[in-house]
């Protein structure tokens, strides 16, 4: 990274009473980068993004956006960035056109310039012919693209998207991410939070957030490189949920998790794969098939969280298998039980 970073956070922290939502987070985002923040609900993603957008003052540490201090120059930051909040940020009782005109006006756009940018937003959102449709009549995917267009009316060099594809079908999500790629190609920096692994895979770099801490930050291939070759094994067997307990008790398995109908296990020694399969077979979960796989980002995520947990406790003992197992679907995540969801926390609104 030679160019000056668009976003630079240093030891950025935010506490809500005794609860530490964001704990000494530091990172740089390069111009034109698609920078992903991956983590479960309550990991501190939204709190971080709200601090960067000047909506929430940091408790300690500092950050700059486009070289502007987020605490002291919040108004200037707001003028120059785009922001799409997690909650729906359009007026459903206004039309597409009225929404664009309002949000443009809120950024001080008017007249011909506003008209031109509204046309552009309509075009990128694929809403031609729907200008006078009420937003409440649009499907979720259309609204999401419109909200993105509205956040980009004033041509900000950087845009912050907080879980932009929540509640949208996979096809609409794909189209939304195509838009993000286009923006990035055009030089716009995109800072996006998500808890979808497939979305994170489309980012140039991904920061893994867990319980307020930034555990890892790298490209997706590099994040997956935390495992030795052959260490991640996919197991197909009978009664997979019950087999998980058996798997966890096996001395050579450092992690195990349920992925749909199958199990993923991380072996301390890749050579013990057949031995493991035999043991599950003997325990009555046959037929068992175990094969080495390329680890997914989710495997890497779980692994990283476990390593961080060990660092914290200072013991080499295996982390609680149940925590890792809870992440199987990729939607729920570790910590979701122990930290309140960000929406429920005070200080967000009021």
């Amino acid at each position, binding site marked *: 990274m030679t160019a000056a970073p668009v976003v630079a956070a240093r030891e950025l922290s935010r506490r809500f009473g005794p609860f530490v939502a964001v704990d000494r987070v530091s990172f740089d985002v390069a111009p034109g980068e698609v920078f992903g923040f991956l983590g479960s609900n309550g990991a501190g993603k939204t709190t971080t993004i709200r601090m960067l957008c000047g*909506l929430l003052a940091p408790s300690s540490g500092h950050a700059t956006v486009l070289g502007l201090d987020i605490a002291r120059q919040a108004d200037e930051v707001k003028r120059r960035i785009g922001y799409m909040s997690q909650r729906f*940020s359009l007026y459903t*009782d*206004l039309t597409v056109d009225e929404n664009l005109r309002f949000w443009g006006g*809120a950024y*001080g756009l008017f007249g011909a310039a506003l008209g031109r940018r509204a046309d552009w937003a309509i075009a990128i959102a694929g809403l031609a012919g729907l200008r006078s449709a009420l937003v409440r009549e649009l499907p979720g995917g259309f609204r999401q693209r419109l909200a993105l267009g509205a956040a980009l009316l004033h041509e900000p060099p950087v845009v912050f998207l907080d879980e932009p594809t929540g509640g949208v079908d996979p096809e609409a999500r794909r189209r939304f991410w195509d838009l993000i790629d286009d923006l990035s190609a055009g030089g716009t920096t995109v800072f996006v939070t998500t808890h979808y692994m497939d979305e994170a895979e489309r980012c140039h770099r991904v920061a893994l957030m867990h319980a307020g801490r930034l555990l890892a930050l790298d490209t997706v291939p590099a994040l997956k490189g935390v495992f030795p070759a052959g260490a991640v094994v996919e197991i197909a067997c009978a009664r997979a949920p019950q087999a998980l307990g058996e798997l966890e008790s096996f001395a050579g398995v450092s992690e195990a998790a349920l992925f749909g109908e199958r199990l993923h296990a991380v072996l301390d020694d890749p050579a013990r794969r057949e031995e493991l399969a035999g043991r599950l077979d003997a325990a009555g979960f046959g037929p068992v098939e175990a094969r080495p796989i390329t680890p997914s980002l989710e495997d890497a995520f779980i692994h990283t969280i476990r390593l961080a947990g060990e660092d914290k406790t200072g013991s080499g003992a295996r982390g609680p298998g149940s925590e890792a197992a809870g992440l199987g679907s990729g939607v729920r995540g570790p910590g979701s039980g122990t930290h309140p969801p960000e929406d429920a926390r005070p200080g967000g609104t*009021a």
Partner: protein
Amino acid sequence: MIRRTLAIAVKELLQLRRDPRTSLTLLGMPMLLLLIYGYALSFDIVHIRLAVIDHDGGRAARDVRAAFLESGYFDLVAHGRDERVLDGLFDTGDVQAALVIPADYGTALAAGRQVRVQFVLDGADAQTATTILGYARQIVASVSPVLRGTATNGPVLVRPLVWYNPDLSSSRFLVPGLVAFILMVTSVIATALAVVREKERGTMESLRATPLLALELLVGKTLPYLLVASVSAAGSLFLAWALFDVPVRGSLAWLAVVTLLFLGGGLGWGVLISTLADTQQVAFQVGLITSMLPTLLLSGFIFPISSMPAPVQVITHIVPARYFLVALRGIVLKGAGPEVWWPEALALLAFGAVILGAATVRTVRSL
């Protein structure tokens, strides 16, 4: 700055247009309430059930009876020649008052002697009884000189001369208060809901992420409601004139200025509530209670401030309707100019400024 404020105001108007229920409520409710309360709320006592016991039966006696009935306050429900029926009639409440004319009424008058008629009253409701007695005295006083003819005047005679409201109609006094009351309640609630709605829908977060300043947001939000409330106020005053015979004797321009000042305070109060409340339900309830009760009880709308206990009188100074009522009644009933009510106008201006300032500070802090 002005452009961003306008963007908010235009958006708010568009939303109001899409929401006919709210706009109809804002426009129609004040006038509807005025209709309902205007007819129901009256201190005037009419249709008093009167019994006449006429022992004389002559022409002079009929004249005094006619004077009572023609006054418009009394309805004749019974008449006869025997007082003993009165006991039963008063007991059942069939009559509220009785006029008893003595047998020598006509002859005494003809002889130029003083004569007494008896007026019997149901005093259970002292307030009503006092009013009825007042009517009776007035009527008798008005017939006496005629009957007296050439007789000499008594030593002292009171000739009442009531200014501004010669027939002492209570609606002249109450309807302006009602207008103030209704405008206060609707303006507070309308704005309180308008800001809290943004919070509930989650759009507030997006608004905060824009360069919009708190003051721009609040002023932009308030302007459309000020417009709607002004229309509503004009409609209410028109109705007051058309239906309740409440004249606007003073200048319409001054009336508009004072009303705008008052509405500004009410709308500001609504905005302040909205910065404290998180749900529309809470905003509605707080708005209703804090606008309705003080305006009803502490503004001089119904209960005169001068007869309140001293500590309560102090509290009335923070009720904006108190000032508005003085100015409104002054302009409407007396045709008074700003030289009379400028302190009240100033108080309204101060109230609005303080409230909007507080709301802005609250909004900035919550960022």
